[in-house]
């Protein structure tokens, strides 16, 4: 579904994304695990098109979309749940969920239930500063669900979420995979990738290991969480 080939992004001489290769398959959840500053959000931005790479390509269903605009990509079925989603004055949650199409009330309600937000309480609230950080992130995930995307990039959907809501979030992510979306589940928390079929570990803008979730969790704990090289410009990966 989505292929990323030899992607490179350098900022002020520092490589943020460095020769990165990755494939996310239809109906599969692909975990991307990395510590703070590993380049996860930079990669999410490149896939969504909020920034462009210096080298390499992004391929969606065989089509090179590397130079496409955000809107073009979204219309082709890519969307992003932002790590820190923007706030909108005067825009209701109902409207936010239905931005790209006519969303029926029952559908909107369904997606809110999926992320654990009672529709009666939330549908008509604004997506503004009155929502807590966790609420806003759950709304973000619901809006990605509502878009029925081909490719969903989820940038740390689990961070800032309380323990009661976390199962709802994870449930929503699993749901997306079941419906056939290719999901890139970005996180720094190795517990969260257990719902994925495959996990890649990112470090200094490079994929340094890939494999099944359990194995990768283990490897991540042993190698990355104490890694002294992270973020250093001359770090070339393992």
């Amino acid at each position: 579904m989505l292929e990323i080939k030899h992607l490179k992004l350098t900022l002020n001489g520092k490589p943020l994304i460095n020769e990165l290769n990755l494939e996310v398959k239809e109906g599969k959840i692909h975990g991307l695990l990395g510590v703070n500053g590993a380049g996860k959000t930079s990669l999410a931005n490149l896939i969504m098109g909020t920034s462009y790479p210096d080298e390499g390509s992004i391929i969606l269903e065989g089509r090179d979309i590397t130079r496409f605009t955000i809107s073009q990509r979204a219309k082709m079925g890519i969307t992003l749940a932002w790590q820190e989603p923007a706030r909108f004055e005067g825009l209701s949650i109902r409207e936010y969920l239905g931005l790209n199409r006519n969303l029926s009330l029952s559908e909107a309600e369904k997606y809110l239930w999926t992320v654990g937000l009672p529709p009666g309480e939330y549908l008509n609230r604004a997506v503004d500063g009155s929502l807590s950080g966790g609420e806003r992130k759950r709304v973000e995930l619901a809006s990605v669900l509502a878009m029925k995307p081909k490719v969903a990039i989820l940038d740390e959907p689990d961070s800032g979420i309380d323990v009661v809501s976390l199962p709802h979030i994870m449930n929503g992510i699993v749901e997306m995979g079941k419906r056939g979306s290719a999901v890139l589940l970005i996180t720094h928390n190795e517990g969260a990738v257990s719902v994925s079929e495959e996990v890649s570990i990112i470090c200094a803008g490079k994929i340094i290991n890939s494999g099944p979730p359990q194995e990768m969790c283990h490897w991540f704990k042993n190698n990355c969480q104490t890694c002294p090289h992270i973020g250093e410009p001359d770090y070339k990966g393992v």
Partner: protein
Amino acid sequence: MLAVKEYEAMLEAYGKAGGNLDALKSKEVGNLVIHKNKVLSVKEADGIKVETEETESGVNIYFLVKEGAKIKYPVHLCFGVLPEEGLQEIILRVEAQDNSEVNVIAHCIFPNAVDVIHKMDAAIKIGDNAKFSYHETHYHGEFGGVKVIPKARIEVGRKGVWESTFSLIQGCVGMLDYDFEIFGDEKSINELMVKVFGKKEDDINIVEKIHLNGQGARGLAKSRLVLNDNARAMVRGETYGNAPFARGHVDCIEIVNGDGVAARAIPLVYVNDKQAKVTHEAAIGSIDKKQMQTLMARGLNEEEAVDVIVKGILR
């Protein structure tokens, strides 16, 4: 124009401007319709008294909400000038007696204005524990030939509530010189809100002043402006915390979205009691990039995204 024809023309314009025609025709709903200096309709709802006096250039109005009266339906006011030219000076005296409660919805319509002046001078007194909501919506044509000069001085009694919105979003503003000043007594609530969509050569001046004079009085001076083309705007939001536990906030957002726009905001917060607190936030700038990217990531194009953001801000 014949009075009947004039009334029909006003009704039609009122309907087009989004006014509620059923409410205007209802027997139970209070209304007041004025074209230039002609009073075309007055209906007093239960608990309300309205006196009018036509002058050469407009109408003098006395509007009374009787003590303890809770007015069931919103009272509808409709002021306008339909021809291309004309002057309308409204002198308004409002008295909302103690424990009364009313919601007033006003439409001001100038659909064909090329050279129209609309002035309002209001002296408003809200009694103890009374609640007054006032929502004024303007409908202007596309020519920008309107000068709108609304001025109000509002006194709010103990535990009284004043909340008003002034909204000028449809059509070109022309020139706006809005000046509302409010004085809040003990535990009163004093909220002023202005929403303006400036276009072309619009010239917008807004002054919102809130004096929190009584202990525990609360105030909010809020403004939301979007400026396209060559529109210019100046917003002064001032709040004075003059009593213990007075709490005020000035909140101004101006979005500049045209190549020739000029936007200024001067928030002033003043406190002369050590237990009062007044805060302010003002943001002037182009549309937030992240908001744009977020909406585009849901499949909107650039223009649609701007539209969603602007509509939200002015809602």
